[in-house]
């Protein structure tokens, strides 16, 4: 009797959701889980998937403000491949990634290792290290512009009082100088980010492991190589991934600091695409953006594969 009534209410409570679960041939619980994810999917779709698809579609058209819009297939891409300025921009962007990311992650690791030790004033230092990351990129770009400034920059002031060169140095005037200048400015700004993530990774390593290693008479280097690095690897990969993708689409620091000069030597792909957007040549800019997106995606996949991410997560 009791059981029967229970069954009845259960049958009566079969809702539309149950039927949807039946149609999709999944458990009712899984459906509930999916339902919880729906807001996130909607969010991602509106903010990411739709714009990406829209940009991709735009890249297949001749979308120039003063000409009728027209589908042209891959013509924008073919023109990009023949565009010397595009390749100059690609070379700069990749070089920037390959120099700045290892630099930032290595420095970030060093800072994280120091901040992970116990010493007086550690809390203050941990907070202080984050300051550059908290400063807007455009502002830090402007700060470095003032440091490198030819007439009244801090760098040339040091050159003068230390008597290092005959006259002031035009720091951003050569290819090498401007490249080093933007890498340095970017490293100053984003090293704290790497340090923060790595510090989180370090503090999750069980201290007993170090004690055990010490008992086994492992020296500092051995402890670092055989305890820290393997356990930090998943976090390290995430840091590298984040930094690589962010460095690939670097814009603000360079836009403020060099504006892409001298002679287009420091034009990242995002600035290259932006120039076309701001001059009403949307299709071409979109094609450049899509290639940048593909680059970022490929590198991310590469990292995830190389980091054997799924294994380390399990």
């Amino acid at each position, binding site marked *: 009797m009791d059981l029967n009534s229970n069954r009845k209410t259960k049958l009566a409570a079969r809702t539309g959701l149950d039927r949807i679960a039946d149609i999709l041939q999944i458990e009712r619980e899984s459906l509930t889980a999916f339902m919880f994810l729906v807001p996130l999917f909607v969010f991602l779709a509106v903010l990411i998937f739709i714009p990406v698809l829209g940009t991709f579609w735009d890249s297949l058209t*001749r979308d*120039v*403000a*003063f*000409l009728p819009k*027209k589908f*042209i297939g891959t*013509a*924008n891409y073919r*023109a990009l491949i*023949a*565009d*010397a*300025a595009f390749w100059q921009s690609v070379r700069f962007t990749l070089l920037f990634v390959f120099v700045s990311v290892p630099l930032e992650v290595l420095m970030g690791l060093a800072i994280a290792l120091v901040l992970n030790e116990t010493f007086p004033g550690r809390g203050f230092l941990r907070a202080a290290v984050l300051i550059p990351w908290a400063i807007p990129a455009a502002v830090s770009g402007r700060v470095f512009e003032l440091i490198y*400034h*030819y*007439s009244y920059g801090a760098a040339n002031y040091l050159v003068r009082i230390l008597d290092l060169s005959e006259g*002031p140095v*035009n720091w*951003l*005037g*050569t*290819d090498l100088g*401007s490249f080093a200048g933007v890498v340095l400015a970017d490293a100053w700004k984003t090293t704290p980010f790497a340090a923060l993530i790595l510090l989180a990774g370090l503090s999750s390593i069980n201290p007993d492991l170090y004690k055990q290693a010490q008992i086994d008479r492992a020296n500092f280097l051995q402890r670092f190589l055989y305890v820290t690095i393997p356990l930090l690897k998943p976090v390290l990969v995430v840091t590298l991934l984040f930094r690589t993708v962010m460095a690939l689409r670097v814009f603000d620091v360079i836009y403020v600091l*060099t*504006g*892409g*000069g*001298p*002679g*287009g*030597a420091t034009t990242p792909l995002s600035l290259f695409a932006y*120039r*076309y*957007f*701001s*001059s*009403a*040549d*949307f299709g*071409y800019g979109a094609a450049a953006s899509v290639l940048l997106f593909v680059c970022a995606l490929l590198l991310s996949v590469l990292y995830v594969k190389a980091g054997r991410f799924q294994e380390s997560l399990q």
Partner: protein
Amino acid sequence: MMNLIPFPCGIRIRLIRWSVGPWPLARPLTHFRKPANGHTGQPTNLHAVLKAACICLALVSLAACSEPPAREVVFAVGGAPAELDFWETLADDFEKESGIPLRILRRPADTDQQRQSLVISLKAQMSDPDVFLMDIAWIGLFSAAEWLMPLEDIDTAPFFKTVIEKVDRPAGQLLALPVYMDAGILYYRKDLLDAYGGESAPRTWSALAETARRIQPAERKTNGDFYGFVWTGAQYEGLVTAFMEFAGTRGGFVVEDGQIRLNVPANVRAMRFMRDLIRKFKITPPNAYTGMKEEDVRMYFQRGDALYERNWPYAWPLHQSRDSAVRDKTGVSPIPAPEAGQSASTLGGFHIGVSRFTDVKAEALQFVKFVTSYNNQKRMVMQLGWNPGRQDLYDDPDILKQAPHFKALGEVFRSARPRPLVPYYTQISAIAQQHINSVLAGNAAPQEALAAADREIRAVLSRYAIENGSK
């Protein structure tokens, strides 16, 4: 009337319950909520206050939900704080005079960012801004994109005829009006030229280089930062305008067989000269190609650290300001001429236009007329020292009293050379900027750089004319 319903409904109902009188919305509700004490007596002070509160609340919610007044004119303008202040006062006067509300949409001082913000709202066919200022270099794009509403019923006689014909009336219809004019001019230190041999301002680029190379070492003895000649060499539009002036009438963007070309002898010579100013003669600061835009150039000269300066006329009142080191020591002269061909000052300036997507056509036109009227243009001259787009102001006695150099400037504007009025000017200018700048940086030889620029320009054009040359 749906607007009456929203927000703290409970409060309103309670208020309405106490209100009496023949008030349309109050009635039905009072039916349901008759006060328990049956109080229906004469309206007391409290009643009056509460009733007024009700009306206020209703009006506030009405105002909060209704559209802003439809006839509002939105004017997009960017610039330095002093410039925006001028536009604000002008806007106030316009509102007072015409009764049309006007809102100023503040834009950045940077011209590239101003263009970007306009391109985005026009491309999206937004009804605001209705009126905006455009750099002369964008008009080709804006008119070809059909973003500008033809200006009807405007007397163009008082404006510079060549400018109106070449720039504002590209295809028979008037699309814009010059608000202020710019043309490159040469500033020089009168006192120094007098002190070192009493020469007049140079008429040719080689004469300029010669005097600068002579005077610079002598001045260096007392001023270590002194340089002969400062000009806008950073990678931006200002570099192209200066380049066109170094090249003279035979150079710049030369059109041959319907094709824009940069690799011509006059341009190669100009590039060599520009590079030599920095690298061989060393009379231009080494950071000219990395950090020198017009404001940097202006401040350098104004500190008293340069003999010559290539800049726009806006620098004049600033050089003459009280805290300037070159006050009353500065002279103005036309741009020098190259070896072959004639001197060519590049035409700049901002023009006013009305968006084709405007929702207040008549009001916008009225504002355009207001801004370009004799009196308001005169105010602009007196307040900002800018050069008006109206020719008739260059003979105004008040103006000539304040700025005697205006007489000569009128001549410069009449002969100044515009940049190509093609819709893809921004793109070809970006190509030119990059290659000229890389020559100045010592990364490329002049002729190779110009040849590369020509190749890239051809590539852009072939991309646009993707189906057999048709647009």
